[in-house]
């Protein structure tokens, strides 16, 4: 009897030792896989126990802040400005995850940023950093409001940049959404979010960075820069517009089918002559055209705080003359985001240099002390300074007496270019890209109104309102 009892003791001990072994496995080696499980809400609970830093607009309005909800997920987001900066800040929700700057700067907002300064270290050691770091945006809420009002509910996007630095001053997409619906701490109602996801107008899509549209005639700015920069043409170079240009059996016609007759290159931009720009594009050749487009940011991922769709132009090898001609007027396989077209305008304004666009001006600790500041960064050199200033003069003419007259501002020289991008089976997309004041630019703007018709009629007035507001804020 004693022998069998001893054997059973051994069995018991083996069983209990197996528990120790299994525990060690879970708690030491297996922990990674288990902790990363999407259904493990411990991390979420821990994260939401931290009061995230605020997000402030350039004019120091509170765009996002964390409030103590007293629920399991203690601190949750509140967006006092509602939908105004929804596509900039994104949302932070334990239920739906994160997007926008809330996602990009999650670590900083939670207070464990990559930059460990003496101050943040001291805060950490003193246990004082109960609140995460705040973001101060480059975006001005007032300009954002003006741009939103100017769009007046039409589908489209507005991007305003400081051409000298690349700082984004406004970034509006419409329709948009109220990020507060992603934070269901007041009620458990998920219907509002479900409606957003199901909405065919795609309010959750940030058109500024992810909407790809044919740029139409606004792309002529890129073609003109290429032609001028490579020495192919000068503003005075004469062209003959017969109204219709036959390229390998395909006809490039001008707006309304009218012919411009003998015309200078500068005037061709003013009246947006398709015939002339198709000729220029064909003379430039596909490789040169694509090369310049890429210098302006096409076929590249724009370095940015938010995910950006790549603006596209076809590879030179795959382009036949028809493709080259129609690409030169911003049709065919050319697709651009509003952000990209704003960069084109800003590059011309900035002497041919494309700056990296950015949304966050500085990061502050919970005391409002700056711990990191983001300065301007040069991205690419598209043209030389002389080309840029020649092109600027031409674009001023566009606004003064050409297709962009609706963007004229009394007492301010505005440089701009319209675009009316044909869409098969629907009204054209209306574009306008511009900057002001022409000789010392402080703001560059790109506007698109989906199916808005003529750029000079619908997009240019929106751009003018944004320019006026931006200039009044300086």
């Amino acid at each position: 009897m004693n022998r069998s009892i001893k054997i059973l003791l051994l069995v018991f001990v083996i069983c209990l030792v197996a528990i120790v072994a299994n525990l060690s496995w879970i708690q030491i080696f297996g922990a990674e896989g288990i902790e990363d499980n999407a259904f493990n809400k411990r991390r979420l609970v821990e994260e939401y126990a931290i009061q995230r830093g605020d997000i402030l607009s350039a004019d120091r309005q509170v765009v996002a802040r964390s409030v103590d909800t007293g629920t399991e997920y203690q601190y949750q987001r509140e967006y006092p400005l509602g939908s105004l900066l929804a596509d900039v800040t994104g949302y932070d929700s334990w239920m739906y995850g994160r997007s926008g700057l809330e996602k990009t700067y999650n670590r900083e907002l939670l207070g464990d940023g990559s930059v460990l300064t003496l101050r943040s270290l001291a805060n950490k050691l003193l246990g004082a950093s109960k609140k995460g770091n705040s973001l101060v945006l480059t975006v001005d809420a007032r300009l954002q409001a003006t741009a939103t009002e100017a769009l007046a509910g039409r589908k489209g996007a507005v991007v305003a940049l400081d051409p000298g630095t690349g700082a984004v001053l406004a970034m509006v997409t419409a329709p948009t959404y109220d990020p507060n619906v992603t934070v269901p701490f007041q009620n458990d109602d998920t219907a509002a979010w479900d409606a957003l996801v199901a909405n065919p107008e795609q309010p959750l899509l940030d058109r500024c960075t992810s909407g790809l549209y044919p740029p139409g005639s606004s792309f002529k700015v890129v073609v003109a820069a290429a032609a001028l920069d490579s020495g192919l043409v000068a503003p005075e170079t004469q062209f003959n517009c017969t109204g219709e240009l036959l390229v390998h059996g395909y006809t490039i016609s001008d707006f309304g089918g009218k012919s411009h007759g003998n015309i200078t290159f500068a005037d061709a931009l003013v009246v947006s002559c398709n015939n002339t720009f198709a000729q220029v594009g064909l003379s430039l050749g596909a490789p040169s055209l694509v090369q310049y487009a890429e210098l302006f940011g096409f076929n590249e991922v724009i370095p940015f705080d938010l995910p950006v769709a790549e603006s596209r132009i076809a590879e030179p090898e795959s382009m036949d003359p028809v493709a080259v001609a129609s690409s030169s007027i911003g049709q065919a396989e050319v697709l651009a985001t509003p952000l990209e077209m704003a960069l084109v305008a800003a590059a011309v304004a900035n002497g041919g240099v494309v700056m990296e666009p950015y949304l966050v001006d500085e990061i502050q600790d919970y005391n409002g002390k700056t711990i990191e500041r983001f300065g301007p960064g040069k991205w690419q050199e598209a043209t030389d300074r002389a080309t840029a200033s020649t092109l600027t003069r031409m674009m001023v003419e566009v606004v003064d007496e050409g297709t962009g007259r609706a963007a004229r501002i009394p007492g301010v020289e505005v440089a701009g270019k319209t675009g009316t991008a044909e869409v098969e089976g629907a009204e054209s997309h209306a574009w306008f890209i511009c900057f002001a004041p022409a000789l010392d630019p402080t703001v560059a703007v790109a506007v698109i109104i989906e199916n808005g018709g003529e750029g000079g009629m619908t997009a240019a007035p929106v751009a003018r309102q944004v320019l006026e507001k931006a200039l009044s804020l300086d």
Partner: protein
Amino acid sequence: MFVGFVSVELAANGKVLPSLFIYPGAVAGIFLALHITLRIFLPRADPLLLPVSAGLTFVGMVMIYRLDPGLAMEQSIWIAVAAVSFILVVLFLRNYELLAQYKYTLAVAALLLLASTMVLGTEVNGARLWLRIGPLNFQPSEIAKILLVIFLAAFFAEKHELLSVSTHRVLGVKVPELKYFGPLLLMWGVSVLMMIFQKDLGSSLLFFGIFICMLYAATSRKSYVFVGLALFLLGAYLCYLSFGHVETRVMTWLHPFNPATIENESYQITQSLFALSSGGISGCGLGLGQPNSIPSVTTDFIFSAVGEELGLLGAVSVVVMYVLFVARGVKVALTQRDDFGKLLAFGLVSIIALQSFIIMGGVTRLIPLTGITLPFMSYGGSSLLANFILLALLLVLSDRAAGTDAVGIKEGSSAPSHKYNGIRTPLHPLLLRSAPCAVLREYASVARLAGAAHRRSQCFTVLMRRDTMR
């Protein structure tokens, strides 16, 4: 335990009020009273079983206080009630042999208790194992398991020679006559019935496990074990096929992270695993984790909460305490003179061993999860009551065996008993002297670290010893 309470309070409120010491003080007082009772009535009782049980109870008490301060008061009242029954057993059941005479009465009582829930029980968490008596919920299977062990011990002590006789040979293995498999089949039937009618997989597994262990201890016949295990597997497989809840248990064991079940059926086990993994080696600190996200964390899943907040070190200390308890208990069994005492002591120990294994293995996903309390630690009156009665019986048995030792009738393993007794004498005065120092040391460290990382296994060992004043 004091350190544990202070830590919890610091983590929760950042300050300590004098009233905080009521619970640990009361529970420590209860154990002191039990210790004095033992000194007076059972002076030769095993010196380690009570401190180990106290250690487990203290860890459980600290965790319950941390999880739900309201339950801590109820738990301390239950500890007091259980302590009273402990004293009653020590006072009136010192002549435990009497129990053997009432074995069939006890067996019938056990069966009645089990059957009562099937008729009168209320269903909690899908299992029907509670009896509602006035304001109290009572779990009869906790008491029934002790009655059953007493019955089995008496029954096997009487019949083990008969059961051990092998007359047949099957496949070269000596096998007893077929009719002696009768009790085995009966017990199997009871277990399967429990599984079916009460949906109580944990108790069913425990009852059958105890039976097999005692049967093997009594007869040394491996064939019983094999046939028993085969029967159990067969029963489990049949249940797996015919009952949804058994199948669910197995599926959640094999695939806990299946997204289809993780929010429902396997929620508990995955929350437990999340808790354990977030604990790591040293734990996230008392009061600083999120064990409340595990359903029924104060009862069946209390071990997961220990794993989360005290880490691997804390959890392993708990396992080590169970190993100590089992080892000491088995030693009590080995030193018994008569078969009844031997089987009784062993049966009681197997309750603790199997029950702690079933639930600790369950919440760590070593074996399929079956709901059952963790002895001494889980919140629950009937569980505490049963465990304290069990402990009292074991101590009565150990006192008797030591008494016979003194007379000079030694049997079996005198060597280990000698070794343990050797530790006892020098330990006693030494610990008494070091206890105040340990208290001061602990308080100093807690004050210094103001709440976070420092309560580890060594705390428990020190506390366990200090609180029982050995």
